């Protein structure tokens, strides 16, 4: 889109958001908030060298939240006609009558609102600069690199290239008005390896960035994907045993997400978290420091303000194993008698939830290979299957596959096993953190080793 047209549309949407807030107030609301979202997406999938799907579209939506004192309701619509907007607003004003007085409900204080300044490096129009043919070629090259990497790669679910841009505007009745644009592109490959007996294994790899310039080459992505698939061939079960378990960065990230859910203010005030009431206590091993930072330039979790218009910030969640902060929006902060940490996440519907900025586990000093070399007998997990996690009790039991470690070496692939423990104990039992921190999304963690887990198999 030409820059002048972009500026024009932005100012129209800002005006619209402010207008909806004004109309809500004249309809009797004591406070109001409006969010406008628009975005474009493009995706292509190439399979066995042939284009399989091409998808391209743009869409937008608008949502309002109104308050009558301590009662609130929200509505949203993809219909921007005057009739559609009026209906959305009227429904919200009507709906607020049936909700309860909730003393903690409301917008953040006016003094809490704001937007961090400066270029956060979130938007690069170059994600759309490729021609149709070049986009297809990105996908094709990633798949080809995987297919060419090893003769045992015999099939493929394809190579893909995706790009998207998003634009968000937020206005509220305290006079807040903010907006930001973000862009995204990714290249991925999903090859299938087959052994001489016909057994198949699938794996994947991907690169994701806010600008084409920072995307890994499709060849790198395809080659890594192929190696990951091939090394799973011939996987077997193992005997049930207590062994040290090393988690590769993709799976350790998912373990880190349980701390994120555990410090979510919504779970904390309900007592629905294994971390509720533990501020100031040792909840993890002393080398564990977890940071949430919504301000990192170019980050996947970066934005100038959160879903309620509060500036994002850097929060230390766990410092040297001690729980130092929950992650809060204004509602959960009031429930807990604390201050918002600028972690409100606002979809179109309902009350704001809580989401991370860039949330990560601080890396350690040694390479992942050194962690493996130090392990006599153990499991290296590369993939989880299923969701067997209970955040209330901390009970943890997930399907897993990976490689067996013997004598400090990755020796053979394993599958159809589970890894089980309790989250409360697991974080205390993190015995080492490697140095390979890399962001592939808003949440990131390096390779970690946890002792004392039960691996169930035969």
């Amino acid at each position, binding site marked *: 889109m030409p820059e002048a047209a972009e500026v024009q549309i932005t100012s129209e949407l800002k005006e619209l958001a402010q207008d909806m807030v004004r109309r809500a107030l004249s309809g009797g609301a004591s406070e109001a908030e409006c969010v406008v979202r628009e975005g474009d997406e493009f995706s292509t999938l190439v*399979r066995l060298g042939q284009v399989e799907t091409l998808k391209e579209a743009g869409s937008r939506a608008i949502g309002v939240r109104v308050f009558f004192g301590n009662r609130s309701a929200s509505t949203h619509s993809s219909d921007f006609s005057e009739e559609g907007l009026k209906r959305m607003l009227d429904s919200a004003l009507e709906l607020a009558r049936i*909700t309860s*007085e909730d003393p903690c409900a409301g917008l953040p204080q006016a003094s809490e609102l704001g937007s961090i300044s400066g270029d956060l490096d979130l938007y690069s129009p170059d994600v759309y600069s490729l021609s149709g043919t070049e986009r297809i070629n990105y996908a094709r090259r990633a798949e080809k690199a995987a297919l060419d990497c090893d003769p045992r790669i015999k099939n493929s679910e394809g190579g893909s290239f995706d790009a998207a841009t998003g634009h968000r505007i937020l206005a509220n009745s305290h006079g807040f008005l903010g907006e930001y644009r973000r862009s995204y592109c990714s290249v991925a490959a999903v090859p299938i390896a087959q052994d001489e007996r016909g057994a198949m294994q699938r794996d994947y790899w991907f690169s994701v960035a806010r600008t084409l310039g920072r995307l890994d080459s499709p060849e790198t992505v395809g080659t890594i994907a192929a190696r990951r698939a091939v090394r799973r061939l011939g996987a077997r079960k193992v005997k049930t045993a207590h062994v040290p378990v090393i988690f590769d960065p993709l799976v350790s990230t998912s373990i880190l997400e349980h701390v994120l859910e555990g410090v979510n203010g919504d779970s904390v005030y309900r*007592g629905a978290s294994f971390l509720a009431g533990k501020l100031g206590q040792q909840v993890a091993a002393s080398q564990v420091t977890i940071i949430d930072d919504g301000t990192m330039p170019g980050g996947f979790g970066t934005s100038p303000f959160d879903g309620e218009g509060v500036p994002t910030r850097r929060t230390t969640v766990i410092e040297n194993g001690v729980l130092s902060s929950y992650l809060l929006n204004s509602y959960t902060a009031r429930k807990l008698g604390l201050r918002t940490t600028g972690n409100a996440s606002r979809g179109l519907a309902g009350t704001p939830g809580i989401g991370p900025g860039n949330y990560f586990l601080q890396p350690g000093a040694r390479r992942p290979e050194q962690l493996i070399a130090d392990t006599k007998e153990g499991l290296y997990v590369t993939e989880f299957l*299923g969701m067997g996690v209970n955040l209330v009790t901390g009970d943890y039991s997930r399907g897993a596959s990976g490689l067996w470690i013997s004598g400090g070496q990755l020796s053979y692939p394993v599958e159809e096993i589970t890894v089980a423990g309790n989250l409360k104990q697991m974080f205390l039992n993190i015995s080492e953190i490697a140095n390979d921190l890399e962001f592939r999304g808003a949440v990131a963690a390096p390779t970690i080793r946890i002792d004392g887990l039960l691996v169930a198999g035969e």
Partner: protein
Amino acid sequence: MTISHERFFFQHYGLQDGDLERYLGAALSAGGEYADLYFEYLSSTALTVDESLVKSASQGISVGCGIRVISGERTGYAYTDDLAPNRILHAARTAALIASGPARTPRAGFERNPARSLYPVTLPSVDAEITAKVELIMRADRAARAYDASIKEVRANYADELRNILVAASDGTFAEDSQPLARLNVSCIARNQTNSARGSAGGGGRVALDFFFGQKTPEYFAREAARQAVLQLDARDAPAGEMEVVLGPGWPGVLLHEAVGHGLEADFNRKQTSAFAGLIGKKVASEKCTVVDNGTMPWRRGSLNVDDEGHSTQETVLIEKGVLKGYLSDKLSARLMKIADTGNGRRESYEHIPMPRMTNTYMLAGEEDPEDIIRSVKRGIYAVNFGGGQVDITNGKFVFSASEAYLIENGHVTAPIRGATLIGNGPDALTRVSMVGNDLRLDEGIGTCGKDGQAVPVGVGMPTTKLDRLTVGGTARRDTGAFMQ
């Protein structure tokens, strides 16, 4: 405001048959063998009670049209959330670019699919009085708290939607449907001096609001959620390792969904990426197992009058007495694999490309008395409720996580155990089925299935079933832990 759902897009957007032909013509302007239009108007409501307060109420409307063009094995897709003719034409021309050839003309005229009525609600829940919905969740809150003094936190949600769709295709397909969906959910936390535990229950279907005032009341779901939470307060650690597993009737049918259902979706088999590829006519289960997918069950969450490609849904036999019979297909896979279209082409919304998906998937009842099945187990687990599951369709490995399970010791159900994950291999898990009960039951209507980032409502079901060997992923070792106590 109540709006008419008959001929929805014609009445509310002034659409005419001629417009549909014009849009399809634009979609085929660069060649392509097939094109279709999917119009969708979705209205939804969601309400939440938490801490006995109605904390959240929201309503929303989402409108759009998705246009698909197929050329050989290639699919072009574009959508618009603005139903103005110039926007639809623009999207149609974008999707058309997947093909490169002379323009084709869609078939003149449409064949209207005979109307079917699996969910004939007179007043869709989404249009019903909101205060009645508030009453439902307030009643759920009270019932859960009254169940036991240990129930400390209760959250109840009510969500409903009405999806009006119109599908028109260049092969003359034409279908309209108005699809209601409602669901009531209760989750609670029980707490005593030493432990906390959670429980949840819910249900619904393609039903009207009165369903929750008659057949399945808020009290029914609330007591069930509270019962599970209280039970879990005293649960023991789950055992670990291979053992006999008895699955209770109903929701444990998620085993079938994960272990065989996904692996039988035709797209994976067309691409030969499923562990089930090439196994039609082969034995993949014990002869006690007959598994079907049935989109035609009245009022069910997974049912549809027509799928999202305008094709009537049906009952499809997947496994008959242990032998693999067929796949679940959509138009594209049916054409490319030269098999029948089973009416399983589904999509999350107008923003998504349809693909083969399950509807209601279940195992037919056997002859055993469920009591006898339990009595036959010396040492194992009895799993009656599940959180969810996942499968890797390529190597066939699947997991599902029990949220309510018990030990079986010497033919008796004994202590409740904490959530355990069960893991197995799709193509051989059902070969280990040794007993099938006479008590087929379907789930309460809460299932949502995800595939390629698209979520669709589904149902599952099964009778009490015994598997001779499955790996249980608990934390208690067989030789040292609670299992032998």
